[in-house]
């Protein structure tokens, strides 16, 4: 029998409409006061296989609030993929990504798709905390869930007809992270330990690999 687990993650940050680059979007969004707040429940289907493709069982639910979008928008469909391997076409650096994908409907019923990416590895261990808590986000027009949910950074540029609405950065604040740990729930307590272990192993592994790549470059 598969052993599942859930936890809640709250992320907040800034985004800006008409912007394609998350860093610039966050900067502009801060100036413009365009906040975004995500309250997500992560449902890991199988703690033994949660990081292995195709990971269809890691569902996301919850809501997203942005001052520019109006009310809290419930997540209509959501999916989180752990440790998706991505190789930069330009630098060749290998990273692992946690990819969030959400389908929302705004107050008026217009659909939009949110893709969020945590990039892990590809640099030194000192960046772990920042990497593991920072999510670059893009908002796309329409219901593109099926088109983007399984796609890595290297390939998302090739998705036909994807129209970017906004970009920005959201992150888990330290306190929110501590609270997040208390939200871990599983039918079998051993699942939590097992999940934590596998997660940390993959996480640190990503940096070990990054460090090796660093040395290789030198």
């Amino acid at each position: 029998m598969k052993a599942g687990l859930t936890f809640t993650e709250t992320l907040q940050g800034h985004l800006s409409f008409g912007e394609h680059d998350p860093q610039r979007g966050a900067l502009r969004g801060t100036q413009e006061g365009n906040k975004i707040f995500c309250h997500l429940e992560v449902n890991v289907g199988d703690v033994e296989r949660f990081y292995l493709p195709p990971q269809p069982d890691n569902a996301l639910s919850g809501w997203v609030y942005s001052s520019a979008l109006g009310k809290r928008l419930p997540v209509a469909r959501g999916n989180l993929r752990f440790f998706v391997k991505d190789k930069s076409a330009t630098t060749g650096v290998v990273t692992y990504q946690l990819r969030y994908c959400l389908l929302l409907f705004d107050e008026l019923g217009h659909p939009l798709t949110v893709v969020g990416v945590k990039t892990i590895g590809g640099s030194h261990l000192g960046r772990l905390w920042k990497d593991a808590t920072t999510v670059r986000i893009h908002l796309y027009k329409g219901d593109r869930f099926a088109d983007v949910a399984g796609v890595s950074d290297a390939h998302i540029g090739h998705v036909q007809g994807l129209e970017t609405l906004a970009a920005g950065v959201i992150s888990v604040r330290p306190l929110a992270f501590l609270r997040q740990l208390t939200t871990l729930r599983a039918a079998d307590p051993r699942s939590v330990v097992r999940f934590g272990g596998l997660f940390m192993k993959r996480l640190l592994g990503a940096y070990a690999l990054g460090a090796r790549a660093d040395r290789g470059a030198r």
Partner: protein
Amino acid sequence: MNQTHFDTVIVGSGFGGSVMAYRLAEAGREVCLLEKGKAYPPGSFPRSPYNAHDNFWDPKEGRYGLFDLWSFHRIHALVASGLGGGSLVYANVLVRKDEAWFVNENLSQGGYENWPVTRADLEPHYDRVEQVLSPKPYPFEFAPYSGTSKTQAFWTATKRAGLEPFFPGLAVTFANGDAAPVPGEPIHEAEPNLHGRTRLTCRLCGECDVGCNYGSKNTLDYTYLSAAARCGAELRTGCEVKSFAPRDVGGYTVTYVEHPLTAAGPADESAPSTSHTVTADRLVLSAGALGSTYLLLKNRIAFPRLSRRLGTCFSGNGDLLTFVRKRPNAQADPEMPAVIDPTFGPVITSAARVGDALDGDGSSGRGFYLEDAGFPAHLAWALQVMAAPGPLLTLLSQRFLWDWTGKGADPRLPSQLARMLSGNTLAGGVLPLLGMGHDVPDGRLRLRAGRLDVDWNRRASKDYFKRARATSQRVAQELGATFADNPIRYLNRLVTVHPLGGCPMGRNEEEGVVDSYGEVFNYPDLCVVDGAMMPGPVGANPSLTIAALADRCADRLLEKRRRG
């Protein structure tokens, strides 16, 4: 069965929407105009203050009235909702925008406004609009018009203050054709108006700002909209547009709710609002500067390639309302009326222009216009009623009478206003002065928690407001009057009746949301044609310029269709 596909759907029936509706319908296009407010035939504008709150637009509370008050942090804007938009409550003044005020600043180097059109571009359109709205100067040379005390006082005082007063065109019918003006005569119209009712020439009742119950104002419902209806345009009232999106096959889908309005009466509360959808090859947003910008911000998810300039260039057209109070014991002055009665005569009859550094004639600073703003006799009485604690006071103190710092309401304001405006405490009378002009359009409209709000840095326009106040004060002195800065000081900074901008015109999408023909960059056949397209203040009263730009947009749209 109602038709559901049109060549053009127009949202809103103000100056932008009405001109577009007529021009397109006249050229044979199938036009559907959706207006959220009611139609107001003669005699239907309410007057009693006891149910004054029903005269506000607030659908959530079941109110579908004429006045639509938007409360923002530090500024409030008053607009109208009804068939004919702002023309129903406006003061009829039609003035062309000064040639030198079509400002060209470099936006990437700290400039605020850059007009992609010139006065010369608009000249033929001004002419064409004036033919329909027929502005006429106030016939002050004839009795009983010559007895208008506020006009006499304004002329004498502004002249003494070194200004040059003039009679601007008023879109009011004072006379039949070339006959001498006579108040209260039936107007001979070549073709019946859309209300199918007889209009009367102006009766000088001073109620223009709360709707003319005699049909004397040449409002859009009697002019452009009647003509549009004759050409087959479908005018749907009580229809509030909520959302729209591009269609895959080209064109747009528009969703609106139909409010349960009876012909011109109160809402039928038992009936719910119903939702409808129509489609169109082209969509024209003419819901006013606030309405159109709000609609685009709300629907932004469906329009990812909208310019980042959406919401910018907001200004209140430099509105500044001050009150001049004549001292009852002032010395007899042969050139001045003994008593100023601001309730006699149309709300505005005269204007004086104060120069601008851009004029190139040695003037310095930012220019403006001063006008004699009368008010209806019943307003003073209405305010007295409002000053009593009651539901309206609560409504106003919540929605309207914030302290200008935004910290909270000043509950004393209605009673102070009432005292200010009521005749018995003011033997000498009071003359409100409305200033408007070339302020700095640095406001930004945005959504906050889903509601429209404005970020506005008043400091940029500080010198402008200081100068306009100083001039008003000088006029007050010449009147032998006291300058009533208090309590209206709050209002000075508080209320604009000329909100402009939000979807500014530009030469490209870096500069503006729409091009100089109102077409939205990256979205062909989606247009914004109303006060929202102004990249800065008009300076003078804006309606004529909005209408002229609309006429120019219509030309382009029809030309494009012919070629395409």
